[in-house]
């Protein structure tokens, strides 16, 4: 099947998840993504190259499971940009690329002599997308970040918590994932602009800004009504104020750290839940109508928790769903990956072939296209795995010249 993005080539300096996640999307749809890494540091700028999880006892820069996950479908070459010959090779690559993407700290590419002005000289319609926590402009543009820092500074950590406790935040880099989504959008928006006008451009992506847009109406409640989220009784992440719903939360179940999420959207949901629960408290005056239930959520949650606590999460889920009430067990990784047939049937965990790890399952894409669906046959590239292929087929070097470049420490 032809790929939707077959006609695009990406000269890709991204790494970690915040950048690599973006070009993984592009590679899934057929873009030719060529990762460029530093042979001197064995590509370790991307710490995921050599960190867990591992498929077996082998370790090293080609064995990082997260790296493979985020870089499936891409090509990998090494360039030692301390050397002029490597800069010449990079220049040739940029000449035949549509996009230069990176998520270094501000100024790194410029110090190597490949700032945006130079990129434009090499390829006048180049799309250049930089992605870092605070962006390339503004007082904090030299600061260092990674996902949890972006989440903290942008307010996403603060809002994910329970009242009278410290912030729970995110148990993973939500904003590395999501920053990558915005980076992919930015690259494609700029390519669409170029497709219609012939013009390239630079996109300055600051993950902190992208994160700030995700607070929904809270920021308007601040600018219009002056109401802060740092106030008594807040945050209460499992409740729903917009729209108001009650009960609405995550409740304990029998089992090993098992929980069920329940949401009553309206009176009909409440009536259905009350019929399933069928206990005296459901008819208490304090829960008689929506407003009173919403006001008495602490008491409501206590009662509902007592009802869920002796039940298995999937039993509670099934009973409530059968009655038409939104309910979902809090799924553990094994449950949603291997036991919930929905994800497998969707093809969400494709097996890629990695040159050293062999067959490994990775995150797929949560979409299907009728004409140009995604595919991820290859695993992430080993360090310099495609040096010869890219330099010979794309840039016109002979195999002997490539061997000499390796001997000279250029690649």
């Amino acid at each position: 099947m032809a790929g939707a993005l077959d006609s695009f080539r990406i000269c890709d300096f991204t790494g970690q998840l915040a950048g690599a996640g973006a070009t993984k999307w592009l590679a899934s749809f057929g873009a030719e993504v060529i990762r460029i890494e530093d042979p001197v540091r064995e590509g370790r700028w991307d710490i995921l190259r050599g960190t867990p999880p591992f498929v077996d006892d082998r370790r090293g820069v080609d064995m990082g499971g997260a790296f493979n996950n985020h870089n499936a479908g891409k090509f990998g070459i090494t360039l030692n940009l301390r050397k002029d010959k490597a800069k010449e090779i990079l220049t040739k690559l940029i000449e035949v690329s549509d996009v230069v993407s990176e998520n270094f700290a501000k100024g790194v590419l410029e110090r190597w002599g490949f700032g945006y002005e130079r990129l434009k000289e090499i390829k006048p319609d180049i799309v250049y997308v930089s992605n870092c926590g605070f962006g390339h402009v503004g007082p904090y543009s030299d600061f260092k970040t990674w996902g949890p820092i972006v989440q903290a500074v942008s307010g996403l950590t603060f809002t994910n918590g329970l009242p009278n406790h410290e912030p729970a935040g995110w148990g993973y880099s939500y904003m590395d994932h999501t920053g990558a989504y915005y980076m992919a959008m930015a690259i494609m928006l700029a390519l669409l602009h170029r497709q219609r006008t012939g013009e390239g451009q630079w996109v300055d992506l600051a993950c902190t800004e992208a994160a700030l847009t995700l607070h929904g109406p809270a920021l308007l409640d601040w600018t219009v009504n002056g109401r802060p989220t740092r106030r008594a009784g807040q945050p209460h992440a499992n409740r729903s104020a917009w729209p108001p719903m009650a009960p609405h939360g995550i409740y304990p179940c029998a089992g090993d750290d098992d929980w069920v999420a329940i949401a009553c959207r309206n009176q009909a949901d409440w009536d259905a839940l009350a019929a399933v629960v069928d206990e005296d408290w459901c008819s208490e005056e304090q829960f008689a109508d929506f407003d009173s239930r919403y006001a008495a959520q602490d008491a409501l949650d206590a009662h509902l928790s007592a009802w869920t606590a002796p039940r298995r999460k999937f039993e509670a889920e099934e009973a409530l769903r059968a009655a038409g009430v939104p309910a979902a067990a809090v799924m553990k990784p094994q449950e949603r990956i291997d036991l919930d047939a929905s994800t497998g049937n969707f093809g969400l965990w494709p097996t890629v072939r990695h040159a050293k790890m062999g067959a490994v399952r990775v995150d797929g894409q949560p979409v299907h296209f009728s004409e140009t669906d995604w595919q991820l046959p290859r695993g992430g590239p080993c360090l310099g795995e495609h040096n010869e292929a890219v330099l010979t087929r794309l840039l016109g070097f002979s195999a002997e010249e490539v061997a000499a470049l390796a001997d000279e420490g250029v690649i």
Partner: protein
Amino acid sequence: MTALTGVRVVELSQVPIAWAGKLLADMGADVILVEPSGGDPSRGYPPFVDDEPGDDRSLYWWHYNTSKRSVVMDLEDEAGREQFRSLIATADVLLEAEPRHRLATLGLDYDDLAPIKPNLIHVAVTPYGRDDAKSDLPYTDLTVMAASGPPWSCGYDDHSLPPVRGALQGYHTASHFAVMSTLTALLHRGVSGVGQFIDVSMTAASNVTTEAASYTWLVAGRTVQRQTGRHASTSPSSETQQRCADGRYANTGVPPRNPAEFAALLAWLKELGLDTQLPEAVFLELGAAWQGPFDLAQIGTDDEITAIFGAGREALKLIASTVSAQDFFLGCQRAGLAVGVVNAPEEAFEDAHIRARGFHTPVHHEDLGRTITYPGAPYALQGSPWAISRRAPKLGEHNPEVLGELDQR
């Protein structure tokens, strides 16, 4: 000229995809929101302007529907369906999150619409995808997230407390994939002329937005456990959230991990006069003098490396106990350390850096005679400016101009 000028998107109003429509609209797409005669339910969601409920006073509605136009069409009625078909004939993209059989029942699914508009891009968002009967289950943002992974990884060291979910992020994540899919299909159409049907699963979207929880199971068959304010992990890791002298928190994030960072931290500790209070300062000296990079895989097994990294964390804790969270953030960053202050959203919004980048976006509400400050762009495209081109529409506000234009065709 912006990136999506001239791209017409028909959005069948549904709460989970409003964010996707806004992202496209603020980049210049002509997003026409098709609402039922009673209007989208989120028009009635709090919070409200001046806390007074009423028509066109929902801040929720305002936020998610900027730059769009609204028309009312009753798809249950043949006249309304005919109007909808006429509208689709002018559209590039249909964005919808209807119950999975509804459009087919109405004769308005992709197979019905493609003959009217052959290169249409139809993006359908459902809880589990169009082919899965579980998409028929009732759902909310909360249940989508619980079913697909995020809450399992988020919460507290104390597992008697419930896992937590970031409100609305399940819908946001689904919307992000709807937008990425739309842009991908538009690029392909620009080259090939071909449109297509795209099936987006909300739960699949969050399933692949859980970082280590998924790949640790996929690669190693191991399960991560949630921890307070830091990454869920297969084995407990050190706390990273630090309460500072003003009672607010900072995320100490990546502790020092190269010699220059150990040196800078040591220098700051001395500047504050705190080095004598920290017995582990000697390990900071060792870290500062280390030759070459540390092998991070040795943390926890190599005694010296473990002690050096432990000293880094202890030094940060000591400093945090003497300064405000904001000062701790700024001081650490000046020492080259990736540390963040845990801001509330409004504190983040008012921050000097965010202001300097022009994030505050004034939008005039002529009906209220007020100019309201909105959150700004998620990205800064230098050549295709993001903009809020108009406030969120009133119900059916653009019926005359949109339907009038269709009548003239």
